[in-house]
């Protein structure tokens, strides 16, 4: 009984030897040390790197400077950030619309089928990213499968150029992150109390009004969290623009990649990485505040 009432309390005997928190700390120590050594310290290191100067031939000159962060507002790089934000934003928007529709359809399916449907929707997300991207090269290139298909159907004109376009990059991003969005949208939809929607309909609201006024507001926070991740993963991507964009598009990810592997300007690359992290944290904070506010309003609206 005692255990049920205080689920986190530890067995008497152990408690006498060491307090639960000491033991908990000991248990966590190895993992936390690992994360500190190989995540916190390296990330701190690149934050610091952002304030140094690039040596003439790459390498790092240890003089303090703010010029890397100043470069970020340079029209060229600011322009690249905006373009990649636009591409990532479009990809996120499309992924959210399709993903929400799919999650809604899954949540509306008979209950016993939902786990399988969800599993199938999410499965591609865990297969190799490069392979999933490569599949689109096979489909979209000028002499690729779609062109072949069109020819078989009797199309004789000049094959359209589908690969190496912004559309191809966006398609690749949507394709890769869609399962993630479906998952993020499904959770709140599945938790949704069907009686609410019913009540709304009973009160004479149309299906669309019910959706817009009842279902959508209650599921938005979950979707927003999913959207933030898709946006950040897209804007920091370098593989999809390289493979499907033919090098014609630069995302923040390509820029970071280039600073480290081609331009050898590590300090600037470090500064861009910090901007990427800042964007992510900023968006997540906004999402969390919005979600909290939404939850508060909902409590007022439904609990009374």
């Amino acid at each position, binding site marked *: 009984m005692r255990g049920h009432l205080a689920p986190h309390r530890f067995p008497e005997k152990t408690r006498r030897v060491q307090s639960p928190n000491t033991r908990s700390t000991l248990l966590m120590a190895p993992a936390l040390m690992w994360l500190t050594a190989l995540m916190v310290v390296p990330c701190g290191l690149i934050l610091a790197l952002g304030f140094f100067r*690039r040596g*003439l*031939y*790459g*390498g790092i000159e240890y003089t303090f400077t703010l010029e890397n962060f100043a470069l970020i507002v340079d029209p*060229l*790089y600011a*322009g*690249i950030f905006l*373009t990649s934000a636009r591409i990532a934003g479009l990809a996120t928007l499309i992924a959210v619309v399709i993903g929400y529709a799919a999650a809604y359809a899954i949540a509306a399916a008979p209950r016993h089928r939902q786990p399988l449907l969800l599993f199938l929707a999410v499965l591609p997300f865990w297969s190799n990213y490069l392979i999933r991207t490569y599949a689109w090269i096979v489909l979209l*290139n*000028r*002499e690729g499968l779609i062109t072949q298909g069109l020819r078989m159907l009797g199309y004789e004109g000049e094959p359209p*150029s589908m*690969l*190496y376009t*912004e559309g191809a990059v966006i398609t690749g991003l949507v394709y890769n992150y869609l399962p993630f969005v479906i998952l993020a949208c499904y959770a709140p939809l599945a938790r949704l109390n069907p009686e609410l929607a019913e009540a709304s309909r009973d009160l004479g609201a149309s299906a669309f009004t019910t959706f817009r006024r009842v279902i959508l507001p209650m599921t938005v926070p979950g979707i927003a969290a999913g959207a933030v991740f898709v946006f950040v993963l897209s804007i920091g991507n370098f593989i999809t623009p390289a493979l499907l964009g*033919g*090098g*014609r*598009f*630069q995302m923040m990810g*390509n*820029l970071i990649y*280039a600073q*480290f*592997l*081609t*331009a*050898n*300007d590590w300090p600037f690359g470090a500064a861009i990485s910090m901007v990427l992290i800042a964007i992510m944290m900023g968006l997540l904070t906004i999402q969390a505040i919005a979600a909290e506010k939404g939850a508060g309003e909902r409590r007022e609206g439904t609990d009374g």
Partner: protein
Amino acid sequence: MPQSPAPLRIAATLAAGLVAAGPAAAELVISNWDGYMAPDAVANFATESGEAAEMVVHATNEEIMGKLIASGGQGYDVVFVSSPFAEVLNNLDLLEPIDAAKVPNLANLYAEAAALPHDPGNTFSVPYAWGTTGLCYRSDLVSPEPASWHDLLHPAEAQAGKVTLLGTDRWLLAAGFLAKGYSVNETDQAKLDEVEAELIEAKKTMLAFDDTTFYSKLVSGEATLVHAWDGWCNYGIAENPDIKFMIPSEGSDLWVDTMVVMKASENKDGAFKFINYILDAKNHAWAAENILYKVPNKPAMESLSADMAATYPNMGMAPADLVALEQLRDVGDASRAYAKAVSAIKAAQ
């Protein structure tokens, strides 16, 4: 090279991992572009010299430079890089001076190849292949035949959307410099800006930036006119005789791909042995036959069959004509401006 059984290798890797010591250094590590050496060259060298050697690949100069600068050259013995990058490595003090006594086959190099502007006397780099950059095109699909760099940058209607440009900093900008009649090593910011604008304009009619698969795009018909290194165009010619190579009227660059020995190498004698092995007339000729690039080795080139030059006309280009072109050099601090210009070009919509 005998492969140790898998369990042993796993155990060895484990051990290496535990002591964080990296792979055993006995094996000579040679990094080259993929497919830029006869496939059997390393194995033959190993048999002949008794040195264990492994070939690893890099996709671009920049990629291997990133790795070399990050690691201080650790883990590599012989690296193949283009001459401007060899100059940078040398300035960074990462290269071992070439010990001519250990590479007697240096005598096989053309006189021109021993007096290249970037490294007269081959003190830190040994030329492996050389050539020029130009236009590679499907003569059955492109008419009239291209004549100028402008035909690449501003192609006729029929070619629009079917041209590719080399995407690495130096060659991408070289196309613009040459079209404008400037030096391929231009460092004047105003001229660089002009070329940047020119290349941004060229993007509108371009299919993609491509450094690795342009010739297969020509073969499949995905592209009809591409910016190419002469030797790599030959790969296309080998698959489709309608593919041709030409040097635009404004001229072109001389590029030299070199072999360098890392100062961090733990087996420098082995590294020199390898370079000497490659410079052997028979081996260097075998390399040329395999990679279809000109090599700066006099007896090797002279031993090639006349068919080669007939099938691949650019193989017949004389060293004197080649060195008359301006060699790509390290541009020092301007490389930052180059990188920025290339970023701007690639980002432009």
